[in-house]
């Protein structure tokens, strides 16, 4: 006699906990071929608000953690992700309509991407910072610091590799993130939340809201306690006016990582390409410190 499945409930990931949307809403997530996969929480503007509060609260500690420590934590994320390989392959295959073999390739690439960023944490300041030889008796050093709370509109198509490719560079330098997952393919994001929760990532460092992008993106872009926003996920998002989001972001002069644009419309980047430093660079601030040298 076959055993009855214990099905998973997909919830939000905010402040290290897994709440349902405060709105009480959920929506049906379908596979690439249109079959019902699960119900996901339909995050609201208030969930985004709560996520920002959690991200702000976590920022001080995460930014102050040693880069070595952040690297260890990110590597731990890769380890736990690898441990859930089978589950992610299933979710990616179903959501993105890939063969198991292709989905396995995507999951492996995602794990490797996290490892890549894990190795960056304690090199960012060395590569992006330097001593400045000023014309005077002063010690003068410039080093990158995290920008703060970063809103991330995660890619709509690449629900795992794209997701880790946008989240990892944000937190590698010490930012905390409020991530709006792919609207149509949110399941790997929720599972990633479970990975993060069990990987020594302090609660609030990454917050994941599964939602309709168009409904919550404006609130995130306009939120004055968010310091930067990654608009990658506008590509392929229904009803999202990315120029409008950038204009909202100007309200508190957020740093804006624009989407890639081809032929006048946002397109999702090729996530298999080498990422480079751009996503790290986009969310750090250069701080320059002067001090006299004397007896």
């Amino acid at each position, binding site marked *: 006699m076959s055993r009855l499945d214990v099905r998973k409930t997909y919830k939000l990931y905010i402040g290290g906990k897994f709440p349902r949307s405060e709105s009480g809403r959920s929506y049906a997530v379908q596979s690439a071929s249109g079959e019902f996969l699960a119900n996901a929480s339909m995050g609201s503007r208030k969930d985004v608000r709560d996520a920002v509060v959690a991200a702000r609260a976590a920022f001080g500690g995460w930014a102050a953690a040693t880069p070595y420590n952040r690297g260890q934590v990110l590597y731990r994320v890769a380890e736990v992700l690898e441990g859930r390989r089978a589950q992610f392959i299933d979710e990616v295959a179903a959501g993105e309509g890939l063969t198991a073999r292709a989905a396995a390739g995507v999951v492996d690439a995602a794990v490797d991407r996290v490892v890549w960023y894990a190795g960056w944490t304690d090199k960012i300041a060395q590569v992006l910072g330097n001593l400045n030889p000023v014309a005077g008796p*002063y010690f003068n050093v410039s080093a990158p610091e995290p920008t703060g709370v970063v809103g991330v509109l995660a890619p709509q198509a690449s629900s795992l590799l794209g997701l880790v490719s946008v989240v990892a560079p944000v937190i590698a330098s010490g930012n905390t993130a409020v991530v709006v997952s792919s609207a149509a393919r949110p399941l790997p994001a929720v599972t990633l939340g479970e990975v993060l929760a069990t990987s020594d990532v302090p609660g609030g460092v990454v917050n994941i809201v599964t939602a309709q992008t168009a409904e919550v993106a404006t609130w995130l872009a306009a939120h004055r306690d968010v310091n930067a926003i990654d608009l990658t996920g506008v590509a392929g998002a229904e009803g999202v006016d990315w120029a409008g989001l950038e204009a909202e972001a100007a309200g508190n002069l957020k740093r804006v990582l624009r*989407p890639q644009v*081809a032929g006048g419309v946002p397109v999702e980047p090729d996530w298999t390409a080498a990422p480079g430093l751009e996503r790290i660079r986009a969310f750090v601030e250069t701080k*320059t410190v002067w001090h006299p040298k004397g007896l």
Partner: protein
Amino acid sequence: MPTFDYAPAPESRSVVTIAPTYGFFIDGAFTRPKATFATLNPADESVLAEVSQAGPKDVDKAVAAARRAFEGEWGRLSGAERGKYLFRIARILQERAREFAVLETLDNGKPIKETRDFDVPTAAAHFFYHAGWADKLEYAGLSAPGATARPHGVVAQVIPWNFPLLMLAWKIAPALATGNTVVLKPAESTPLSALLFAEVCQQADLPAGVVNIVTGDGRTGQALVEHPDVDKIAFTGSTEVGKIIARSIAGTAKKATLELGGKAANVVFDDAPIDQAVEGIVGGIFFNQGQVCCAGSRLLVQENVHDEVVAKLKRRLQTLRVGDPMDKNTDLGAINSREQLDRITTLVDAGVAEGAERWSPACTLPTKGFWYPPTLLTGVAQTHRVATEEIFGPVLSVLTFRTPQEAVAKANNTAYGLSAGVWTEKGSRILWMADQLRAGVVWANTFNRFDPTSPFGGYKESGYGREGGRHGLEAYVTTTPATPTGATR
């Protein structure tokens, strides 16, 4: 009458020739003056010259000239040759330093001591520094392995009136070093040094169209930043205008760097080198009449040394010499415009109404021109307008704190994040404070230091991007392909 009263020591204004009217500098030549408006000497309200108001068509011409230069001779020039032009410009600025200093003082109102010893030499230094980068950009770590950093193309630059020539240098030097061409708009009230700089470009035989200067008010600036053929915007000015620019380029491919306002905290601990701290506080807020975006306008002093520090500050302020900016002994010159003077007056009055105590040393202000005495506001709380709004004038708000944590919390309790100061003899505390302060520049046991090699720029609403140093180059290059696929900012 003090025993040792310094006799007037005025700099001669005969070293500089000011034309009665000026046109624009477009495509290597000056245009005929049109729709002119006056630029005043703020020290006596006399008219120095009439300059032209650029309309959209003038901006069009300037942008077109810059585009032609970018796609023509300048774009094909090697980095080494570009660098040599910048070296030439730097040398000419040094040779004509006296002219620039006098002109800047006349147009801006700042003391000749500052234009002579700071503005002009530092402007020349910026060209020297960036000249050397022009053929070494591949060493600057601007692009990923295998990719090349390329210039954006035509850069629109809008600069403020507080350091007219120096801000021009901060903008033009890195733009040209990286191979861009420029249309620059100086501030409405201080256009003359930029127009003299146009002559320097001619003297240096800089190819036509590489640098174009258009003058005018905010409408000109708006036409320039909104021009569709501009690839990148570099703006220094108010946070208010910075937001408008950020909004106006939303959804376009235009990049921007914004260097905006500030409300810097200057934090003085009880173990500070007090005499040098007093100098740093004074220099931090009264340099350039406090019309400095990174001015240390909020003094956060540890409560147990508040009285001592305030007493020393008051004594020191009594030795500040306020008056004729052309006198070599003047420490504090004129406020740049009536508009700015009104703003300072309004904010200080609001501070007093909110309960702050106002103090100024005895000083006789000239009857003509725009003047404000050096002013201390004590008893200021975080909630007062003078502690949150940028005054941009010679006004220091004094607040107290009890613990390092409280100092950090108060220092960071602002929408701005441009600069901050820390004064303490304890090394580990300096480094801790430097880590905690959310500001782009932290001066420890010093204040208001600038150098071409040292990146400058803010956190939060003080803007984004850095100017100066290796980091400053980033804003002027792109590593994305030439085809319009959009990019990161």
